[in-house]
């Protein structure tokens, strides 16, 4: 794995730089954070209500990370490379959609 040298000195350049080493860098970083957030939401709900719903926790956190990902695509280096690539954003969408569907339909059964 070879990484290119930093092309600029801005914060955007610094944020984009890891993707020159690994295309999936931000996915590898953001996915565990998303799961961690879901776990925190689940635990908070469990403490507040008495029982938690992990599906709804994942649905909410994946939706939040999808929106975060949209903003990530706006950050670009001086070379014009986006911080979060379209494929990675689509993966976040693809995770968010089924979990949100399950969450919506769980309310029907309740």
């Amino acid at each position: 794995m070879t990484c290119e040298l930093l092309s600029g000195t801005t914060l955007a350049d610094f944020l984009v730089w890891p993707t020159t080493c690994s295309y999936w860098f931000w996915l590898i970083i953001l996915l565990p954070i998303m799961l961690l957030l879901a776990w925190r939401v689940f635990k908070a709900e469990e403490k507040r209500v008495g029982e938690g719903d992990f599906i709804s926790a994942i649905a909410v956190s994946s939706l939040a990370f999808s929106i975060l990902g949209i903003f990530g695509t706006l950050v670009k280096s001086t070379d014009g490379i986006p911080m979060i690539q379209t494929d990675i954003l689509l993966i976040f969408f693809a995770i968010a959609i089924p979990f949100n569907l399950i969450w919506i339909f769980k309310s029907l059964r309740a």
Partner: protein
Amino acid sequence: MSQFRGIVGNFIIAAVLVLSLFSFAIVVQEENNAADPLKNNEVFNDSFNKLIESVEISSAEAEDKYDVFNEEDPKAGFGSIVLFGIVSVGKTFSGIVFGTFIAVIRLPLVVLGIPATIYSQILTLLIISVIVSVWLLYKLGG
């Protein structure tokens, strides 16, 4: 499992949720000159267009069926009132449910590479739920 109104309502909520997420992405990227806009992606574009089509069809069909229901002349049946318009409503809205499901689930299927067998199983479950709920709609009137 058998609430027809619930199934259709939830599918419309799901379609609006996904559509608003997609629209938000497109608008934000367009307004801020994103380097690689999502609307250039083939899979995304296809899913987005199918979803818009599905939502437009559902609103048009809902208006049509409302007119059919309004023009219906109720007939007294055995201990109940017979409305034939409800059959057409059931058929149309079950079509909308499948159209929306296919449009919403398309992106996760392609991107995550979910096997076709899992998709078929979910579709089977959905078909059974819709059949039962439409039958109850005819029988009990909703």
